[in-house]
């Protein structure tokens, strides 16, 4: 407590601290650039090496220089130092550098403290069940390191061969601590009031979450097609609509500058609900993963949605803020619909615009079709026939030049959805048919056990809509003309030859099943928000709990749990005695039945003498009993410590002692 110098760490203690720090930084590896991870690990390895060589801590200037170099390189790498990602990179680096100077107990404690924070912050990037459990393992390591620091260095067992015997007890204690902490932690989790609005926010887009963007240029969807993480999950009120109808509408891209497709800026909100639906409607609930983008997805065509979403003129759903936490919303969609029976001149102009200095060959082809074929339907069919005749579906298409659509249509003839959709829309516009690109997802995996549809990022898709006088906006999926299997089976099935080993069919099937657990985790834990918290006591008839009540609940349940633990702790240690005293008591009880009970203040020697003098046992037994008492005295009170074996032997002798009951 007072001014004693902080004790130095032993190598073993250092190893534990190093392992805990390593675990905390490792949790950040998935979202940090490879180079950063490499540098952090190199610093950790250097710290370990220096400790094992008994080299002193680094000098101050060297440390400062290292920090400066690292901060500079982070600034160069990220430019914006205030995002979550640069922050986590900096935290990892500081933690590793801290280990480099850790020699005393005090440094180690500081490192563990900061490692806890670093470990927690890793969960801000990935909230999946697997990752959370991994973070819990990291927490076990942290606790084990704290325990090691607390143990006296001298009495630790020497490095034995068995790894488990060496490192087991601390790890076991850490795991047990977490397990025992579960009830209290749960009560905290349930009752700590959630914030209605965050205190601070990282700038949007600083986090690099994958998801559909609102622009499309060649190759932009490609990254998504390789991403197996969940985009959203859908629970249908009724039966699952047919697969070929599962087009999940996202951003609608109308503006084309020759390279990139964009949303049309002056999108007006949709007018009062027209009667779009021409057939049955479908009701369902979507649980959208955090995407950091403001738009939502719905089955073509959403006609009714929950309150705070806005429906644009082009029937895409957007929110005011980005979706930074999982979001749940209900939608009613019409699978058969009629959209925009009449097109305003302005709309028409937008949907026909083509940059004149791009893709001349495609434009000529469109104009020629308009000239040859008079029917809009025929032109659409001509384009689909063209694709069907000589195009291939592939996820790794050859690169395209400046006139990307020309290159694709007339030279490479290989590509995936975005190429087909873009080329199709360009051809239609050239032929005078209003057309636009719709991005979103197509298909999904239906989990029978959980009765929900899982849509992954890899289900991302792009298709086209053309406006036909008789039908309004009509969906045309040119990709389906090339590869019907893409729509029927999904992107994975089509590109089976191009997948990495870890995306094999059986593994994917397994992961599709395991998504049930992820969904449960998401439902129960990740999406537990203010509304769910307020409705916690719903089953008891309490509709809404306010923050104050929550805090009282937290304090109340916490106190009950702690009081229980306190009582248990105090009871468990009471009323127990040393084995030798238990045996002595047994001996006295046995004699009490034959001779007389031992007086409260009677010592073993006096009692033994009294027993012998009473003559109740007979001479031989009396001597035997006397010897037992003498053994007890020497074991209990002699100067040298009695060995456990001697105590055991005494206990056994007492147990063997039998007296014939006096008649």
């Amino acid at each position, binding site marked *: *407590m*007072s001014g*004693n*110098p902080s004790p130095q760490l032993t190598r073993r203690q250092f190893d534990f601290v190093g392992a805990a720090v390593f675990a905390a930084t490792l949790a950040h590896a998935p979202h940090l650039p490879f180079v950063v991870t490499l540098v952090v690990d190199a610093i950790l390895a250097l710290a370990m090496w220096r400790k094992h060589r008994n080299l002193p801590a680094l000098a101050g200037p060297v440390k400062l220089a290292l920090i400066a170099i690292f901060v500079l390189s982070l600034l160069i790498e990220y430019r914006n130092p205030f995002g979550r990602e640069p922050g986590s990179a900096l935290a990892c680096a500081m933690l590793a550098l801290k280990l480099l100077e850790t020699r005393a107990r005090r440094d180690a*404690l500081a490192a563990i*403290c*900061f490692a*806890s*924070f670093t*470990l*927690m*912050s890793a*969960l*801000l990037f990935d*909230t999946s069940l697997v990752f*959370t459990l991994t*973070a*819990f393992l990291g*927490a076990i390591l942290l*606790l084990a390191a*704290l*325990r090691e*620091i*607390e*143990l*006296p260095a001298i*009495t630790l067992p020497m490095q034995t061969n068995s790894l488990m015997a060496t490192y087991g007890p601390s790890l076991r204690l850490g795991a047990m*601590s*977490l397990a*025992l*902490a*579960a*009830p*209290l*932690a749960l009560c*905290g*989790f349930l009752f*700590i009031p959630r*914030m209605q609005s*965050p205190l601070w926010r990282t700038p949007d887009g600083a986090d690099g979450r994958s998801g559909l963007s609102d622009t499309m240029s060649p190759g932009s969807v490609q990254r998504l097609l390789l991403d197996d993480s969940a985009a959203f999950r859908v629970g249908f009120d009724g039966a699952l609509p047919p697969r070929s109808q599962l087009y999940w509408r996202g951003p609608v891209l109308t503006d084309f500058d020759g390279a990139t497709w964009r949303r049309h800026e002056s999108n007006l909100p949709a007018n009062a609900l027209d009667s779009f639906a021409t057939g049955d409607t479908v009701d369902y609930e979507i649980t959208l993963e955090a995407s950091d983008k403001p738009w939502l997805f719905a089955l073509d065509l959403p006609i009714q949605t929950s309150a705070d979403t806005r429906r644009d003129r082009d029937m895409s759903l957007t929110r005011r803020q980005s979706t930074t*936490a999982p979001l749940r919303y209900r939608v009613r969609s019409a699978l058969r619909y009629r959209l925009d029976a009449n097109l305003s001149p302005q709309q028409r102009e937008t949907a026909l615009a083509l940059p004149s200095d791009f893709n001349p060959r495609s434009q000529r082809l469109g104009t020629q079709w308009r000239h040859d074929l008079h029917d809009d339907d025929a032109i659409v069919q001509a384009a689909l026939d063209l694709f069907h005749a000589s195009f291939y579906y592939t996820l790794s298409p050859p690169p395209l030049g400046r006139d990307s659509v020309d290159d694709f249509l007339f030279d490479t003839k290989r590509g995936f959805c975005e190429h087909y959709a873009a080329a199709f829309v360009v051809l239609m516009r050239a032929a005078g048919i209003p057309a636009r690109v719709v991005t979103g997802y197509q298909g999904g995996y239906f989990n029978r056990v959980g009765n929900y549809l899982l849509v992954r990022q890899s289900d991302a898709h792009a298709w086209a809509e053309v406006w036909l006088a008789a039908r309004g906006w009509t969906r045309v999926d040119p990709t389906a003309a090339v590869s019907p299997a893409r729509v029927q089976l999904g992107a994975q099935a089509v590109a089976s030859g191009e997948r990495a080993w870890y995306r094999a069919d059986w593994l994917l099937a397994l992961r599709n099943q395991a998504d049930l657990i992820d969904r449960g985790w998401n439902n129960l*834990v*990740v*999406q537990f*928000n203010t509304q769910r918290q307020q409705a916690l006591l719903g089953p008891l008839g309490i509709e809404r709990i306010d923050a104050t009540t929550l805090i009282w609940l937290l304090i109340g349940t916490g106190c009950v749990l*702690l009081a229980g*633990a306190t009582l248990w*702790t*105090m009871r*468990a*240690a009471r009323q*127990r005695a*040393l*084995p*030798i005293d238990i045996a002595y008591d047994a001996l006295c009880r046995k004699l009490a039945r034959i001779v007389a009970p031992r007086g409260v203040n009677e010592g073993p020697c006096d009692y033994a003498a009294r027993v012998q003098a009473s003559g109740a046992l007979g001479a031989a037994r009396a001597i035997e009993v006397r010897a037992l008492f003498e053994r007890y005295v020497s074991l209990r*009170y002699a100067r040298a*410590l*009695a060995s*456990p074996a001697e*105590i055991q032997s005494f206990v056994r002798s007492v147990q063997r002692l039998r007296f014939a009951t006096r008649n």
Partner: protein
Amino acid sequence: MRAALVTAWTHLQRLAEQRLPALTRLKRAESLPILLHRRRIYVVPSRFGLIYSAMLLVMLIGALNYANNPALLLTCLLGAAAFQSVFAGFRTLDGLQLQSLQVGPGYAGGELRMALRFATLSPKRGLRLRMDGPSAANAANAPLAFDLGVVGESAIEIVLPAPRRGWLAIGRLRIWTAYPYGLFHVWSWLHPDQRVLIYPRIEPNAPPLPHAHGNTQARALRRDDDDFGALREYRSGDPRRRIAWKASARRDHWLVKEFEAPRNPEIVLDWHCLDGLDPEARISRLSAWVERAEGMQLPYRLTLPHTRLGPALGSPHRHACLRELALMPGYAP
């Protein structure tokens, strides 16, 4: 500034011990064995515990800000585990019993080895022990860290400073633990009502023993009848085999053979012969001589102002002499 704070803190502690009955009760010495139980185990969060809880608060706010439930769950788990470590800490001290203590010989100015025998019903880890009181502040009195890994009895050795000769009360020992995670400081007092005798300081490089020159080996007395020095009159109690029968026959009273006396005169360690020295120095020198005479196996006599011991040789005599020397009344320096 720092010194002033320390003074204020000790003052505050003293005040607290006066005011709080539970603390003052343990200021008194107790007879062994001393059992630590819930009424005398105290718990406060350690400094690291406070820092760690501040860090947990930061983590909590971070998790809440990002509405990130898994992060919140991890924070809650770590917080609950940290909080519950207080129970493990309590159990570390609970049921611990100081059975006995055994103190080796110590000389003033040196140190004292004290073996404490603890009994425990469950293995205890991460215990610390330190003398309480004024010496607690000095750096040499670093806490002793130990484990009691086995159920039953085990002994711990602690080294105490032995400031001056005479009786030394063991004083109060502070036993504490921060096990398992260093977040809570769980402590109690052990104040056995035992005192130990500290022998006087042994003067280093003391001059040789007085009158101890020449052959210093006491010779074993031989049974050879011819080798006696003189005859003297029989006194009652003389053994019969010592009677010189031939010589007695010529006299009217019995004569007994008197064997040769040891060649060296008896060693007398006399307080009064050291007039030139101050009293403490005399005590030191006499003690040194006692030890030397023991080492050379020479019987010696110790003469002090109020008592005289010996002549004799051997452990009981040595301890008696050193004890008398240790308990000489104090002299102002």
